């Protein structure tokens, strides 16, 4: 059913039930995201896509659009909140971009640039979380995990449909785990999928490091905003 909503005061015609992040993107309004994957069930974990809908703060990725919805995206207050959430992720873990294998293809880094982050307003915690290296083709740099749950929800063992990745503990004690046996039987393309789906440098493919030269890395070729808006590579 065709409906009309407004985004930052601009009328937008779309289909009822579409995801707000997608609707905004189709209308050239970029809403930063980290956990959201188009076409997959909403995870709603990072909250980096926070907007106002009918006056209330909400995560855009969790909103199916309905008739008459009034959406605010581009206000100074909201932009600062989204930036603060990204900064919060940077201070909560250890994100040392220059030494990270994922640099240049890291969504957290790219989104940080996109929202104009320079330094985190929150005190850096420098957590010590042991890395997990037992699997043959994959290792986990746990201090980079942002608990987005993408790997937990979307990467499954193809024979048994069991979870390969899981979270242990809760709150600040939470950490990402991987089942070594299941990880070892992931086919190479699934290993790559897991590394790619990770929006930070937590899931790393063994034997693949700083493969792309600076200047030819994913988000240097096309920014995270351009990718989200589906613009052609220039």
């Amino acid at each position: 059913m065709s409906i009309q909503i407004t985004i930052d005061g601009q009328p937008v015609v779309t289909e009822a039930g579409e995801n707000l992040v997608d609707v905004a993107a189709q209308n050239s309004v970029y809403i930063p995201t980290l956990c959201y994957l188009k076409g997959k069930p909403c995870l709603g974990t990072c909250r980096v896509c926070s907007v106002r809908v009918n006056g209330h703060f909400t995560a855009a990725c969790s909103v199916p659009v309905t008739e008459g919805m009034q959406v605010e995206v581009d206000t100074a207050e909201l932009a600062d909140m989204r930036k603060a959430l990204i900064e919060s992720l940077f201070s909560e873990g250890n994100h040392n971009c220059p030494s990270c294998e994922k640099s240049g293809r890291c969504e957290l880094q790219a989104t940080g640039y996109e929202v104009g982050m320079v330094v985190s307003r929150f005190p850096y915690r420098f957590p010590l979380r042991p890395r997990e290296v037992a699997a043959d083709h994959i290792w986990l740099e746990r201090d980079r995990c942002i608990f987005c749950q993408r790997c937990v929800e979307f990467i499954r063992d193809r024979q048994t449909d069991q979870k390969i990745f899981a979270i242990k503990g809760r709150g600040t004690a939470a950490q990402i785990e991987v089942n070594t046996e299941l990880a070892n039987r992931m086919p190479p393309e699934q290993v790559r999928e897991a590394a790619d789906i990770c929006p930070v440098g937590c899931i790393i493919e063994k034997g693949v490091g700083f493969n792309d030269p600076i200047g030819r890395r994913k988000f240097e070729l096309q920014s995270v905003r351009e990718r989200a808006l589906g613009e052609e590579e220039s």
Partner: protein
Amino acid sequence: MNNRIQAIIQRYQTDRTRLLDMLWELHHLYGYLPDEALSELADGLNMAVEDVRETSSFYHYFHHRSTGSYTLYLSNTVIARMQGYQEVLDALERETGATLGEMDPSGTFSLYDTPCIGLSDQEPAMLVDEVVFTRLTPEKVSGIISQLKCGRSPEEIANPRALPKADIAYIDQLVGTNICKAGPVFFHKGNDFPELLKNCLDAGPEAVIAAITQAQLRGHGGAGFATGLKWKLCREAPGATKYIICNADEGEPGTFKDRVLLTRSPQAVLMGMVLAASVIGAREGIIYLRQEYIYLKAYLEQQLQLFREQQLLGKNILGRADFNFDIRIQMGAGAYICGDESALIESCEGKRGTPRVKPPYPVEQGYLGMPTCVNNVETLVAVTRVMQEGAEWYQSLGTEDSRGCRLMSVSGDCQRPGVYEIEWGTSLNQLLTLVGAEDPWAVQISGPSGECVAVDKGGERRFGYGDLSCNGSVMIFNRSRDLLGIVKHFMQFFVDESCGICTPCRSGNVDLRNKMERIIAGRGCQQDLDEMVSWGELVRSTSRCGLGGTSPNPILTTLQQFPELYQAKLTEQSGVLLPSFDLEAALQGNERARIELTHHDYIPRELIQDPETEK
């Protein structure tokens, strides 16, 4: 394969949604959850063991290392701390030989603290396995521990007359119910439930919804959603089957009225569930009972049995061929967040108690994906009473925007802590007089997630959805209390209880707690206060659920009500460095790096001398 584990899996028909129950059975078998047992359980359920542990590690009553023969949980609440928590803890450590969080060398006792166990009117209190001991003193602790050492079980100590656990006398022996003021709604006696149900079934579901709607009954869990509307939505939602869940996960620190209702009015709770089932078309109901109330379980099972015997539960209820409904009790395992209805549903499905993304709402897709109605214990009793006495009767109680009565769990600095039934519209001062508050200075309304009210400013405010929309927790503090310390305790509670699924709540609450510690230590400046407000707003606005939506409240509401307490702690900035910046500590990093580089060796931080202790 271990036969006992196989038997557990078979008992639950390899149904992974019953994982919480299976984990409890394993826990009872071994005293904790050994890795090998979890692996076998995982194999039997076609799950990765990490997936099983994803659930088990979420709940703090599940242990993954061996525990002593007796597991002791001392309730760690601000009220307990006002009433001798530390002395009791010292006595426990001394008598058991276990330090907090550990097991004693002989493997007899494991000692933990735990957030509010719903006994704020009789603190200090502790659970020893599944038995509760209240009003503890160091002497009482000595007695209990020495008896345990002599081989008497916690049950034998707490229940010397060996009363059956299903008897109310057993519960009365363990805990006081302290109903200080009963009213027209919640503790009604002389009920004829078969008659009531018959009348409601004859009138039909639409009439029941109409009555509840006309009574303007709103949920007593805290959010205040219209009960009639919730039932209507759930009734109308398409679904092959539907569920009714009673939320008895009374986790808000300071509340205990649901415990008292489950003890004194259990059948009115069950009646509310049966009525809900008849209206929405549910065949199964669940009471989600927090582990802290495990000692009520046998009693509640007995009440369910009595209902079945009266044909109020089971097949063909009251002889009606089309009405089949029964209730099971789901034990929680220690997680405040499970009071959130969607987290509670996840927990019932054997998963982590993570609040769901909404929409869809539980009335559309809840338990096992089916329309589900989750109601608080108190709401269900109110439903029963509305249907007994009529909507007009209920409407005559309370105020225009808040009909009826509500139960208050009152604790802290007052002469008569306990449960009070008050009409909505009662003022805070009236309640304080009623309970014999002693020099009340600040009142924490609705627990940590609510608000702190300065009595001299807000004493005339009234309880009701429009103003003091209280969830039942009222904690009173007099002028001798360390309010900032209480705020810090509350923030620690939220840090501990955040499920961690979303960024602002998981990370932001840590920052807020750290700021609070800085202020209390006298190293904060105005900038810290400003940042607390802005970071608090961020957490409140962007979190996924009500936990993060309310967790900054202890700071934000005390800053607003008692700004002078914060101002008195501030330090002026002198020079270019913030007062919180510890230059000496910062330079330690350099010293440490220098030593490490010289010796090519990692040196644990604690081995490098702290300049503070040197002085």
